């Protein structure tokens, strides 16, 4: 069951095409990474999902229903451009934003208290936003995003500008949300930053989707069958099916080598051969990062 489906979404601005035939399926209770360089169309797609913009053509289904205005109540959105009313008090601001999402007043107040307590900010409830540090403002904004317990949480460049401590707090909270049943969309151009969190991934490039699917499957598909080995004593050469791509000395007698094995070949065989020759300190498969996959995919296309 998909929580969100986009079907052939097209959107153009006066001077350029922002989205071309974008079809995505976002499974329920998953963390979905919407990746791509700046200007690929990620924010436009998100704005269409949040009803801020309208697509020129195509349909969006939320829980199998065609997306409507009142669906915004089941969506929580943290825009890339963060901002709150500077002269408004923390508590009032959260209450206002929650009520705009249709939350009942007393329920909203309870939840605000709960969240402020959780993120250790209860003492700041009566302060104006402008009196808060940047990091605290971001926490408030995160609370505002999830206060109405949306089914779909969309985070645009979630970690840009957050300090490392907050990044960890927010990461934990995101995983919590997912475990409680929410679906999360991450959008970012710094692909490595969310790679570990995502279950599903879509890559956008110049308004088009160039790759999508389960992260596991994609990684599988882009396996290089290369292994990196740290060892003591030089390699004297391996059997014909193995190719030594690189071998350099780290210090005195320690070496770092990269070995290519044939597809569908068991690395244990390689290991056996290595053990005879050298003392092995590290043996690991080289898994390409999302960034590398992206680059190879883009160069493949052009």
């Amino acid at each position, binding site marked *: 069951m998909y929580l969100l489906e986009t079907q052939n979404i097209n959107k153009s601005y006066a001077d350029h095409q922002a989205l071309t035939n974008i079809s995505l399926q976002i499974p329920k209770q998953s963390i979905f990474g919407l990746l791509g360089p700046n200007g690929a169309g990620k924010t436009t797609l998100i704005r269409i999902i949040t009803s801020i913009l309208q697509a020129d053509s195509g349909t969006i289904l939320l829980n199998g229903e065609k997306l409507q205005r009142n669906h915004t109540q089941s*969506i929580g*959105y943290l*825009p890339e451009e963060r*901002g709150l*009313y500077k002269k*408004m008090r923390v508590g009032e601001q959260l209450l*206002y*934003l929650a009520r*705009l999402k249709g939350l009942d007043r007393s329920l909203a107040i309870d939840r605000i208290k709960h969240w402020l307590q959780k993120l250790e900010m209860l003492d700041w409830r009566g302060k104006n936003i402008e009196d808060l540090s940047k990091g605290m403002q971001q926490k408030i904004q995160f609370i505002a995003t999830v206060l109405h317990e949306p089914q779909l949480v969309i985070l645009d460049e979630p970690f840009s500008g957050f300090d490392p401590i907050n990044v960890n707090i927010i990461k934990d909270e995101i995983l919590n949300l997912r475990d409680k049943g929410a679906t999360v969309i991450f959008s970012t151009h710094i692909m490595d930053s969310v790679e570990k969190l995502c279950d599903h991934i879509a890559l956008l490039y110049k308004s088009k989707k160039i790759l999508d699917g389960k992260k596991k499957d994609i990684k599988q598909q882009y396996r290089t069958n290369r292994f990196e080995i740290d060892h003591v004593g030089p390699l004297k050469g391996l059997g014909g099916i193995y190719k030594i791509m690189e071998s350099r000395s780290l210090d005195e007698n320690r070496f770092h080598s990269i070995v290519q094995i044939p597809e569908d070949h068991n690395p244990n065989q390689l290991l056996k051969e290595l053990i005879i020759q050298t003392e092995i300190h590290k043996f690991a498969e080289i898994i390409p990062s999302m960034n590398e996959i992206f680059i190879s995919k883009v160069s493949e296309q052009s």
Partner: protein
Amino acid sequence: MKKILLVVKREYITRVRKRSFIVMTLLTPILFAGLIGGLLWVAMANKVEEKVIAVIDDSGLFKDKFQNTDGIHFIYLEESIETAKSKFSHLGPDGLLYIPKLDIQNPKGIQLFSETNPHFGVINKIESTLEAEIERIKMVQLGVDQQMLQSIETNISLNTLSLTSAGEKASNATATFGTAYVSSLLIYFFLFLYGVQVMKGVMEEKNSKVIEVIISSIKPFQLMMGKIVGIAAVGLTQFLLWVILSFAVINAGLLMFGLDKDHAALISETAGIGNKASEFTQANSEIMELMGTIPITSVLITFIIYFLGGYFLYASLFALVGSAVDSDADSQQFMIPITIPLIISIVALQFVLLDPDGQIAFWMSMIPLTSPVIMLGRVPFGVPFWQLALSISLLIGGFIFTTWVAGRIYRVGILTHGSKVSYRTLTKWFFQNY
């Protein structure tokens, strides 16, 4: 709808709670009352300055005929005009009136000497006294007896009344003129003040980037309307508080002298001349009477209608500008076309007040961009109902049109940062699908 109300409430509460709002609301009526009081005081100070006129009556016809008044004191001199003239400056009187031996049929050669140009009121008083006395003498000579003369004497003071379908009302040209001028200026001031507040509010949301969170919950148009309505409520609150506080301050001012309107009249009659306090209250009660001649209720009602109508019209244009620009500096070029009709209205107001039923007045009170200021200038003089109805309908049509245009540009503008915006860009945004 419920969400628009949330926006309205936020806009209203955050503004009304501001210190600047409270200070402005409380201080303005006090300043205003102070200003009126000051003007009254100055007027009075002018009035009580007494002129002394020395009279040399060689004709012997005007003995004791010159009666002292509030402003003029007459003294009779028993000396020749030459002596009086030679020591005039030492003597002290402000004027020297010389009446030579007169031929009653052709009274000539009466002279008034003074150092400075004599006051109009003084000349008037002297001339009328002389005329009245000579006329009396002539009548006696013609055989009209004294008693008959007294019975002929009539005193007319014209009451000006304005005739409308609602019946006749006492009117006073000065009060009407003043009301028209003040209410026009006030509406001009309000449209500007609150229009700019809308613009600043939109820019604040755009620049603080909070906008994207908000419009992921409600439509941009709802947000814009909520903001405009919320600020309108702030404006109305301020206006009503000003009206109430002004009345309170004026009444408090009267009470400070221990008097109300009726007592004031009574006391000034009994206390006689020279009592400043009673003069003050007399002047005050005159003002109260004048105020009674102004159609206050209809001025208030039309003020509120035109404030709201004009405000919606201009506020949506100001919102448009606020959404299009990134900084105050950029807003200038778009402010100009909005402010020009307002400034033209204020300039044209002087002509309109002189001729409130003329062509300029009529047409400018129909065009929605100028009608709020101009119509308020016409209302105290009385405006036919059909003109009011037409003007208000046009104004409503006008603001529906401007909010529609502004809404289309606003939804694109609020999400656009960093690009230099021109009128061409605005047109493009207007036609853009979103």
